[in-house]
Every structure is written in C-alpha cells, then in structure tokens.
C-alpha cells in the first residue's frame, strides 16, 4: 500500500464542526445509561474472587469445603478447576506458551491480587462471605520487584518456563546513529524514571455471561469489546465453538484504556456460567480494579542521550529503556510501538537508537492507559530537550522552534518509518505562548521571588499525539512474527427505514465516555442532511457483527468516519438509481441536495430520501429489476494507511499516520520546604485536525490533563520491596479532586489530515499525553535557583525535596 490519495475537504459543513449537545447524554443524565452493573437476567448469580495476598508463592493447598457449604453458594472454582474448564487467555506476548496467562492462578501466584479462586452465589455479599471461608496454604517464594534486578540472571523467575525475566529485548537503529553521536558537539544524558499508574475509571470492568446448555450458545455482555475479529480467541479459552460466542457491548463508565481488552472478566463469567448453566455476573469492585486490572500503565527506566550541534540542532536520540511489564505481557511490547510512532517528537531528529528490554516482575501486568506508552516517550523527549537547552544556555522556546519540522515538510517520515501526515508546530507554540502570556509570567516569576520569596516556574512542552494505529505495531518486533496480522478495521451499518429514519449500528464497545454516538450522529447528519438527534445509534454483538477495533489509540472517530462515508456512498448510489428511475432521469443528471435527490438545475424534480426509502422497502416492482428491496449498507473500513515494515526492520513502515500535536504551558508554584506543587495557570493548545464536535474534544483535553496531573504528581501503583501492594484503595491511590486541578485555558489549531474524511485526526488521548511532560518542566523552572532536576514521576512532594537536596549536596 502507498499513501492514500490526498483528499479535498469540503469548505463548508453543516454538522461537522458544531458543538452540539451530545446525543448520548439524556440516558446518562436520567441514570439510565445501561451500565453492566445495572443489568440483570432471570436467575442470575454473582461471582467474587479470592485474591493472592502474596507477590510470589506456590499454592500448596486450597480447601473450599466450608465455602461450598455456605447457604447461598452455588459453585466454587479453584485455579486447578479453571485450568481444566478453560484454556489459557489470549496472549499477544512474545512467547505465550512460556508466560501463560490463565483465568485463575494455578500452581503459583505471581502478584498480590492475582485471582486464586472464584465463588458464585446468590448475591455478592454471600459470595464474599464464602471467599473468606476458603483456606489456602501458600509457600512463599522470593519475589522479583526491581525491574533492573529482573535483568539479572539468577533473579527469581516469574515464569519458570521462560527461564528468564527478560521477556523481550531488542535494539532498533534508524539512521546514522554512531556517526551522529561521534560528531556531535554536545551530548546530554540522563536516567529517567516513570512509575506505573492506571486509568481507574469510576466504573470497573464487569461482565454478565449466560450459557445456554440447550444450544451451546454463550452470550456475554461486557463493558469492554474491541478487536472483535480476535474474539474467537475468547471462544478458544472457553472451549466453545467460535461461532457459538456472542459478546455484546454495553456502555462503559470510563476506560482510558483499562477496558481495551478486558477478556479475563468475560472469560471468568463465561466459565462460571458454562459450569453452572445459569447466568453469572462478575463485577470487579474497586479493590479488584486497583490490584488486578491487567491494564497498569507503562513502568519505565530510560537511559537516554540526546546529541546536538552547539547551536542547538538536535541530531540524534539514543536510549535504552527497561519496561517493567509485571507478571504477564499480554500485548507484548506494543507500548513501544506507540512510542516509536512519534519517538522523535515534533523535531527533525534524523538518527534514533531504541533499545527496549521488557522485564517481568511480580506485579499486575501492563495494559493500555491513555497514550499507551507514547505519553512516556513525550515526557522523556521533552525532559531531554529542556536539559539540552539548559546545557546550551538556550531559551526553551527557541530550541524547539529551531528543531520543529516545518509546515512545508509534510508528510514527514520520521526515522522509524512512520509518517506525520500534517502539522504546523510553530503556530501551535505561538498560540500557546500568547494565551499563557509567557513574558508576563517570566516577570511574575522574578517579582514573586524577590518580593515574596516564592518559587514560580513556567513549563513548556511541544509533543505529538498520534492517532489510529495499525496492526503492524503489535508484531514488527519480531523478524519472523508468528502472526503478522494486517487487519484493524472499523465497521458500521447504516439502515434507512421505510420512513426515511436512519439507524447506525456499531460493532464494538465504542462508548467509553468519548462521544461515539454524537460523532456518528453528526457524520450521518452531514451525509444525509438529517437532524443528528434523529439518528438512532445501536450496538450489535460479535456473533452478528462486522469487524470492529473499537476506541483506543484515538482511532474511533477517524475510522467510523471512513466507515460512514463508505456506507453512505453505497446507500446514495442505490438511492440515486431508484430516484433516477422514479424521476425518469439519468443518475448522472442528479445531485444530492438538502436531504434528497434532484435533477441538477431543476429543484422541482426531486425525491426526498424518505420517498426513495419507502419505494425501496415496499415497492419492488416499481424499481429497476436489478435493485433489491431495502435501503441499507455496511462498510468495513480498513486502516487507510498502513505500510509493511522492511525485512531488516530498518523501517517499521507507516503504522500511526494521523499525527496530532499540542503545546502546553503550565505555571506552577513549588514550596521548597514541602515539595508541594500548586497551579497558577494552565494553557493547552491542541491540533487534532478537523474537529467534529469541538466542545467534546475540549472536554477530553481537560479530562486528559487532569489524569496527566495525576500521573505527574499523585498516582502510583506502589509495590514495596517484598512485592506487597500498597495502593489497594483510594486513600492510597490518589485521584485528583476538583481542587487539585486548575482551570485549563484551551486553544485549538487545525491542520487537517490530507488523508481522512473532513481531515479529522484522533484527539481523545492528547491531554494526558502532554501534562506529564510539562509539569516537571515547570517544577524544574521554579526550582532553578536550587538547580534541581526532576527525573522521576510522579513528582511526589518527597521526591521534589529529594531533587532539591540532590542538587545541593
């Protein structure tokens, strides 16, 4: 595949670009959103899990008799039972047979919180009572907790079969790395540490499974459904025929990636329902979600160097990153694919060496968290650019300007092979600086230090926000991948009924709190000149569904726009044929106008869509012979711009082409006695191409920034040196309240994508992809008199004090 054709975008749109009220909202406002916990089936039972209190231990004995005997308990399943009932869970890791992931721990537990047994009872109260009656003898094993320790042979093995805790290790080189570093005038280097945090949406994951023994059909409702083409893997796990599984999506109360691929809860519910022959609901609660969500965020150490000329042109980036994947590695190192998509940031850096060492430890595994590993790369690059600026005595704005990819250089291929489709980074920077009144705050910084002894700092970041991933980023890590998949589509069915009313059917759990129904309504309204609130958006399960990847990687809006465009084109083609017949004209003489089809130049010769529709549905004999009854069309929209990696992996190809960009400016005050950080000003300017609903995107910006603040200052899944989990409740895992985040001044810039409908790019992750980069920059600026360097996130107050002391000592 080569690049798609460059599109011409309409100069005027009626609905795209309008901040209409969301079509999703009324049901949620009334408390009738249909979350999974609100659904019940007749005879439904409830499951609860017993979880390991140890980081690493053999299970010697499980006694479930007392639990089974408790009135109200219907079944108790141990890990051993589960291993017979079910096959391992789907695993896209490097070596699934050696880091096997099961529904429940079988022979040993590998992290605090790993499920060990499941109880099914009449209600959750009784199920938990029974859980406390289960007796388990563990033989504790030494845990491996330190990711650098996991590199060492002789470290306790998380998976004995793997023989090592290094699940994957590889160095990639793009461009003339050695030459660039040898000839550099300046090389700055640092060790950076990013600790794991996670999405922790207010609604945890949940599933209801209903197995019908009479038909062998397994129906599962879940607040997670993506990559539907791969759902046969869940059927395999459940040991049922792949065409006897139907997974039906329900709205999710937030996700931020943590519901990207929540197969385990679905599998657990399915296993239990099949065993018992009754519907079973398995809802994770907050304790489950914190210790065991299977979607912890990246947990990385970077040893990184930046090479530059003495006038500040960055020539090379060289890094080794150790990423702590926890006890399993379901997505392989796809997180680094997200990084490699934009590894050089918005800068014209021509040489990159990227060494990734994925290690396993006795912790919950990683999954997706808003940014999926690219937000970490953003932070790393910006930390180094600031370091370089400091080293060269250059203004942080000027060094960025100097290195920006210029508007006339797009589409721009970065050394890894990925493409940036369009952008105007200086315009975004200028807007952000103006909105933030950079010069004013520079003066305030000086004034407040001199007059009041206060420490104010201004941070700046210019970073990318990639959107719409392809399949290749999951396998280009291997020279001979087991499954070099290339499909990553999104689908829609548009159906125009006999009265001309339109229904749009989606095929994944598209709703996470992003606005997929509003996107669909606006896009369909744009196509058909209907009232967006008249469009009915519904969801179908996998069994009758079309392939759908779902939200994630900020891909949904772009992909559904492509699908809607395709389906609309098909419908209009058929409608034109019918109208031509009815109007006794040639289809070439007709045009679409304002909800109907008319003869060009003769607006009286016209058929509204509804008139065409009723003919299509009811009056077969009035149509041309070759036209079938009905008026609906489906479109499977495949990823529009993917190219294959080269055999030698000197290029990874194009895999994340629609590249947004943002600039954040943050003004903070740091208390050098306590390390506490307060916000005085926060500006965010994003360029996500054409916006379908600007208000909605702005809401995601602000929400993402709040999560980014959590990542930068507050949130961390802490494991002590014994692997004991310290973050098992919301008193320890700190989520920002309304008083912990500033008001955000949002700005927008639009450089449309040349390749997508209307020039849309994805933008839902952007806020969180920037805030962690700008906040340490601001803290460091405030602490400039101390020379402190902020290398570690979250920058807890204690770490901030330590950074001051390290600089002074």
């Amino acid at each position, binding site marked *: 595949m080569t690049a798609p054709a460059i599109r011409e975008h309409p100069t005027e749109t009626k609905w795209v670009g309008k901040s209409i009220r969301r079509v999703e909202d009324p049901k949620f406002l009334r408390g009738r959103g249909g979350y999974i916990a609100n659904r019940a089936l007749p005879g439904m039972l409830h499951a609860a899990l017993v979880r390991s209190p140890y980081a690493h231990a053999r299970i010697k004995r499980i006694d479930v008799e007392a639990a089974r005997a408790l009135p109200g308990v219907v079944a108790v399943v141990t890990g051993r039972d589960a291993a017979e009932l079910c096959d391992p869970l789907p695993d896209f890791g490097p070596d699934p047979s050696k880091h096997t992931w099961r529904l429940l721990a079988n022979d040993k537990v590998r992290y605090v919180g790993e499920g060990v047994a499941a109880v099914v009872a009449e209600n*959750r*109260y009784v199920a*938990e*009572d029974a859980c*406390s009656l289960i007796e388990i003898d563990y033989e504790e094993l030494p845990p491996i907790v330190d990711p650098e320790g996991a590199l060492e042979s002789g470290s306790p093995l998380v998976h004995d079969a793997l023989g090592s805790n290094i699940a994957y290790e590889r160095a990639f080189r793009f461009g003339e790395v050695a030459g660039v570093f040898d000839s550099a005038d300046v090389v700055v280097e640092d060790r950076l540490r990013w600790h794991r945090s996670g999405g922790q949406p207010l609604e945890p994951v949940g599933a209801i499974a209903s197995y019908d023994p009479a038909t062998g059909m397994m129906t599962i409702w879940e607040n997670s459904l993506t990559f539907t083409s791969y759902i046969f893997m869940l059927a395999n796990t459940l040991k049922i025929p792949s065409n006897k599984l139907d997974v039906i999506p329900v709205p999710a109360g937030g996700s931020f990636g943590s519901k990207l691929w929540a197969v385990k809860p679905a599998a657990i519910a399915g296993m239990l329902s099949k065993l018992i022959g009754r519907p079973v609901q398995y809802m994770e*609660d*907050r*304790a489950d979600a914190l210790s065991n969500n299977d979607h912890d965020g990246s947990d990385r150490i970077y040893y990184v160097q930046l090479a530059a000329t003495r006038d500040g042109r960055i020539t090379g980036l060289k890094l080794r990153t150790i990423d702590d994947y926890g006890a399993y590695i379901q997505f392989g190192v796809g997180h680094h694919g997200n990084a490699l998509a934009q590894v050089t940031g918005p800068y014209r850096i021509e040489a990159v060496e990227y060494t990734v060492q994925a290690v396993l430890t006795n912790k919950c595994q990683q999954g997706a968290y808003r940014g999926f590993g690219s937000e970490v790369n953003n932070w790393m690059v910006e930390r180094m650019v600031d370091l370089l600026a400091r080293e060269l005595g250059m203004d942080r704005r000027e060094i960025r300007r100097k290195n920006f990819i210029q508007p006339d250089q797009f589409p721009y291929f970065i050394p890894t092979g990925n493409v940036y489709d369009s952008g105007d980074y200086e315009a975004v920077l200028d807007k952000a600086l103006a909105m933030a009144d950079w010069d004013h705050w520079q003066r305030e910084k000086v004034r407040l230090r001199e007059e009041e002894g206060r420490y104010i700092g201004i941070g700046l970041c210019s970073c990318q926000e990639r959107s719409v991933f392809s399949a290749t980023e999951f396998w280009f890590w291997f020279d001979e991948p087991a499954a070099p998949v290339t499909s990553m589509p999104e689908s829609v069915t548009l159906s125009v009924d006999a009265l001309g009313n339109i229904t749009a059917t989606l095929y994944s759990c598209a709703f996470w709190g992003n606005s997929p129904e509003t996107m669909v309504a606006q896009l369909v309204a744009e196509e058909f000149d209907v009232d967006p609130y008249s469009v009915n958006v519904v969801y179908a399960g996998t069994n009758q569904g079309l392939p759908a990847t779902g939200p994630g990687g900020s891909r949904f809006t772009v992909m559904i726009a492509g699908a809607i465009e395709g389906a609309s084109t098909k419908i209009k083609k058929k409608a034109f044929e019918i109208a031509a017949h009815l109007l006794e004209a040639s289809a070439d003489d007709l045009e679409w106008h304002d909800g109907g089809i008319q003869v060009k130049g003769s607006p009286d010769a016209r058929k509204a869509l509804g008139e065409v529709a009723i003919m299509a549905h009811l009056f077969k004999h009035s149509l041309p012979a070759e036209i079938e009854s009905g008026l609906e069309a489906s479109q499977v929209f495949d990823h529009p711009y993917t190219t294959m990696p080269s055999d030698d992996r000197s290029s990874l190809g194009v895999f994340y082409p629609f590249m947004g960009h943002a600039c954040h400016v943050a003004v903070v005050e740091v208390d050098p*006695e*306590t390390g*506490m950080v307060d916000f005085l000003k926060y500006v965010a300017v994003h360029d996500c191409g054409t916006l379908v609903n600007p208000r909605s995107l702005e809401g995601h910006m602000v929400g993402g920034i709040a999560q980014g603040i959590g990542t930068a200052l*507050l949130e*961390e899944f*802490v494991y002590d040196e014994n692997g004991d989990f*310290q*973050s098992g*409740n919301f*008193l*320890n895992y*700190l*989520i*920002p*309240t*309304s*008083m*912990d985040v500033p008001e955000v001044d949002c700005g927008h810039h639009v450089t449309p994508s040349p390749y997508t409908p209307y020039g849309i790019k994805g933008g839902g992750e952007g806020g969180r992809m920037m805030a962690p980069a700008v906040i340490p920059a601001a803290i460091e600026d405030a602490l400039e008199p101390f020379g402190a360097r902020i290398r570690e996130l979250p920058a*807890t*107050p*204690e770490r901030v*004090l330590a950074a001051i002391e390290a600089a002074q000592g």
Partner: protein
Amino acid sequence: MKSAPFTYHAPRTLGEALVLKRELGDQARVLAGGQSLMPLMHLRLATPAHLIDINRIDELNYIRTADGHLVIGALTRQMEAMSSVVVAEKSPLLKETIGLVGHAQIRHRGTIAGSVAHADPSAEIPATLLAMGGELVARSASDERLVGAADFFLGPFTTALSEDEIITEVRVPVWPEGTGSAFLELSRIYHGFPVVGVAALVHLSDGRIDRAAVALCGMSGTAIRAPGAEQVLVGSEPTVDLVAEAGKAAVAGFDPPGDVHGSGEYRRKVGRAYVRRTLQAAFDRAGGGR
C-alpha cells in the same frame, strides 16, 4: 466489597445502648457516622459480630457550653458543629479543624466523637482535642468517667475506652479571650488525610506568651503534643525566629512511621515547617504578630 454479617442493634436511649455494650463487650462496635467504620468493614478489616447503631439516640445530639467548656454530644454531626455559632465563638480552632475533615458528604454524617473514638493517627480532630486539653466523657452501664485527651489515645486506632464504654460527650475547654489558634495541614490531595497536621493555640499577656499548645497528627502512632515546641514558646515574645525555633523543637523527638504518602523523615521536615507556619498564623490571629 461487602461487610461481613453482623447482628444489628438500634437502641433508642443511651441506657439501652450501654446495656448492650456491657453485654456484648468487644464483640460489638458502635456505629455513629460510619464514615470511618464502614470503609473498614467493607474491606473486612473490621468484622464485628454486632453493631450498635447510636444514630437514634437523640439525647446525644447537642452543643452547649457548661462551666468554661464547649460540650458536644456524641451524636453531633461534624457539619452541625462546623456551622454552629456556639462552636465558632467558643472554639474557632475546632470549627477550622472540622472544615478540613474530608468533604461535605463525610461531614454530613461523621461525628466529632466518632472521629475521636476511631483514633486514626492521621486524623485532625484528635490533634485539636489534644491541643486544647479536651476530655471525653466515657460511660458504661454502671459508671461514668472523664478521660483527658492526653490519656485517651494509646496507639493507632486504639483508645483508653474499655470494652463496655461508649463516648457520650466531647468536652473542650474554652481558651481565654485573645487566644489565637490555627490548624494547618499538608495533604497530597485536597482534604485528603493529612500527611502532617498541626493544631496550635497561643495566648499572650503583656506581649509574652503565657500559654501555648501544639499538637500534631501524622507524626506518630497517635495525635501527639509537641512539648518541645511549647517549652520554647512559653514565656517568650512571639517573633519570627521563635516560631522557627519552635518548629525545629517540635519534631526533635519524633520518629514518625512512614507510608506511601511520606516517609518518617519527610514528615519531620513537613512537621517542622508546618509547626512554624501554624504558630505564625495563630499569632497573627492573637494579635501577637511579628
């Protein structure tokens, strides 16, 4: 997370409650606001066989003054105390403290006495009670005694209450006219549990400090007075250097346990800074100034 089963009792009078407490002893926990106990029960860290719900005992809901004390019944909600003009007048420190406890929904149900009985070492109200020299009325079916705050907090979540006793009243001595007081705390998120909190009261006579009390939470296994700071203060004139010295002296003897929110060493640093700042604020309000 659901609590383990229990037998539920809802006495309508104090007498009934005390008889129950005597019968059931440590098998029973008292449920007042529930804002501290229920989370523990949901995690099954507390699994009492019996709950004695005292929320129906209207006679325990009062705020009044009596012989130089502000007297608060055990069932008085934090929010009521916070908005009470009596509390505002007689103990502005207590009002200020309650305003820092959690958020509105918590204060709507949580009680003053409940926070005291729970004795979380990070909790604010015990520290203020300690600083002010408060007392609890502890009643059993057969007895009533007054326990000074200084004797009440024995360890984390451990108090001097016997297993047949219930707190019925919190008594706070009213400090003399001209007292300046303040409560400041450092918490990682807004109104989260403080890492360190400081309650300070000072009174001046002829420009010299004749009375001072400093208590901290988050610095020890219980709320704790800072006698080192108090000794530095009493008899001296309030100055910037004095409060700094008091801050240093306050934490000199402490070896606070650490957790994810702050190590012991961090708490000492913050404690020192916050004792200084809280005293400064107290002096500003006393008119002691610089």
